[in-house]
């Protein structure tokens, strides 16, 4: 019996998202009625399906030690393009165009970060503004969709769960498979853990990073297409101002380290569901939506702090013993 207990606590300590998820789940279930119902759970999943795809793509980039701030406005751009170009060139071509745009953006981001060595923050921040500009140049107001079939795609459900949820789950499982079973996945972990060592070991770090940026932006494009399908319209304000913050928060909450090299898709899934539950709880409590950003910001900071604290506990601090340094400087 004690073996089981130690096994559980070990699992809890290594995968911090599990106790976080359970605590949030239990607190919400006990204190908020209407939370613990199948309909509500399906609701939560349905609302977070598109954000889940966004977070899944972001996981790849964060595993490399970078982050991508442009996904939010990229999502808005692809959403508007999908809906806007459908009457012009048809539904399937406009979806394909949006997806290709996503991949192309990822390629550019990756190239700027690896070849020109520009700080990823600046590149993606600039990208965020550029896409916002392009989106508003394309349309200043909501674009109305015109394809019934497209709309039905996200309204339909399979085995009780809406289609978008299945698509999100597919992305997460596929992403996890890539991380664990493919060479690219292993390279991603290596490059994230220690970039120069990975480079010296013969891994093409540049190509790995570029591919991860492509995956991230591609996922943002997919999320944009799915939003277009969900609302059968597209607003240029989609994804602004804090879609990227949400995705990063989900990934980091799940336990993936911002410095890279540690984490996986299931962590992201857990983080996403936890944030979804918190969001849902605030809705059920009829708190105004302004509290959303407040809670998100606080969670981000708390998670960041825990990231540092937990890292210092598991790995002996590098700053602890500097041989030859005076005692005053040895204490960190």
């Amino acid at each position: 019996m004690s073996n089981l207990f130690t096994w559980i606590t070990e699992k809890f300590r290594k995968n911090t998202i599990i106790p976080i998820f359970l605590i949030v789940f239990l607190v919400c279930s006990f204190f908020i009625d209407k939370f613990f119902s199948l309909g509500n759970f399906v609701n939560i999943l349905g609302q977070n399906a598109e954000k889940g795809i966004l977070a899944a793509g972001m996981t790849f980039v964060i595993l490399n030690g970078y982050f991508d701030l442009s996904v939010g406005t990229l999502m808005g751009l692809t959403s508007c393009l999908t809906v806007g170009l459908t009457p012009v060139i048809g539904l399937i071509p406009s979806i394909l165009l949006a997806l290709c745009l996503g991949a192309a953006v990822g390629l550019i981001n990756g190239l700027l970060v690896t070849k020109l060595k520009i700080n990823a923050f600046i590149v993606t921040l600039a990208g965020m503004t550029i896409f916002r500009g392009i989106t508003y140049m394309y349309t200043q107001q909501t674009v109305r969709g015109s394809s019934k079939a497209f709309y039905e795609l996200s309204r339909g459900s399979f085995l009780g769960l809406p289609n978008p949820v299945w698509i999100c789950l597919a992305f997460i499982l596929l992403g996890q498979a890539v991380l664990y079973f493919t060479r690219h996945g292993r390279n991603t972990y290596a490059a994230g853990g220690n970039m120069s060592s990975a480079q010296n070991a013969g891994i093409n770090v540049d190509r790995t990073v570029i591919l991860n940026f492509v995956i991230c932006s591609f996922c943002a494009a997919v999320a944009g297409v799915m939003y277009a399908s969900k609302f059968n319209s597209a607003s240029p304000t989609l994804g602004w101002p804090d879609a990227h913050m949400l995705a990063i928060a989900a990934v980091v909450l799940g336990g993936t380290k911002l410095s890279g090299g540690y984490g996986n898709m299931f962590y992201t899934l857990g983080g996403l569901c936890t944030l979804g539950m918190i969001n849902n709880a605030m809705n059920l409590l009829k708190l105004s939506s302004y509290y959303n950003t407040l809670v998100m910001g606080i969670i981000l900071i708390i998670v960041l702090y825990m990231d540092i604290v937990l890292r210092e506990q598991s790995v002996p601090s590098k700053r602890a013993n500097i041989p030859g340094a005076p005692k005053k400087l040895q204490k960190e």
Partner: protein
Amino acid sequence: MSTIRTTKIRIAPNTTYVIIGGNFDLSVGSILSFSTVLVIQLFNIIGPVAAMLAVVFMGILFGLISGLLVGYLRLNSMIVTLGMMGIVQALTYFVSGGKNSVLKNAETSWFLQIGQGFVGFIPTLVVICLITVAIFEIVLKRTVFGSQLMSVGGNQIASRFSGVNDRKLVTLTFILSGMMTAIAGIMLASRVGSAQNAIGEGYEMDVIAGVILGGASLTGGSGSVVKAFIGILILRVLDNGFVMMGLPYSTQWLANGLIILVVVCVDLQSKRAKIQGKGGGKA
């Protein structure tokens, strides 16, 4: 002249300090919105002087929190200030109740004179702005504090071994940032006489762009307040140009983003060339 009156210039000096220290402060935009809203809300309740003091205090408080988290707990400054941005923006909506805030009894005097008055024929705001830039630049280049800040940005650990209290300095830059942004918010509120909730949205990036355009290094350690001032001035003039040509706001965003990319690119290339030149070709 009206270009110099823009708020972004007033946030430039403190952002320069933060960037020289090697960090980023993304929360300036929302602290600006918050200050504008709060000063007007409080003005209607407790009068101008108390309102201004309260707002400056809140700005210092926000800066203190960010500064402690980044300086002492060594958290990533981008993420911390990203979180602060969300928190402060939410607080702004909370304080304003979702509506725009308007000054009551606007005739009462001297508060509006700050924003709309003149010293001779130069607007008061321009005078304040130029004085601030001058003070910050002199402190940066001629005092111990300034050179310590530059060393912290250049190599934090080395500066600590040299006896500089790097954590306190970093915290101070954030506190200054919060305080100056709050003051900038007060001046904006006094100029316009009302406050909108999301006025500061996106400001942080434009200010960072201007500072980088002015030659500050992204990794910290070098920069100049005067050049940052000129950098932001150039960007504002460009924006003004777009507006006068009748192009929509979206063009401004597009151009700003592209300019940042190009400037950073050129900046990095020139720095790499300098390093390679000195090191005899070793990358």
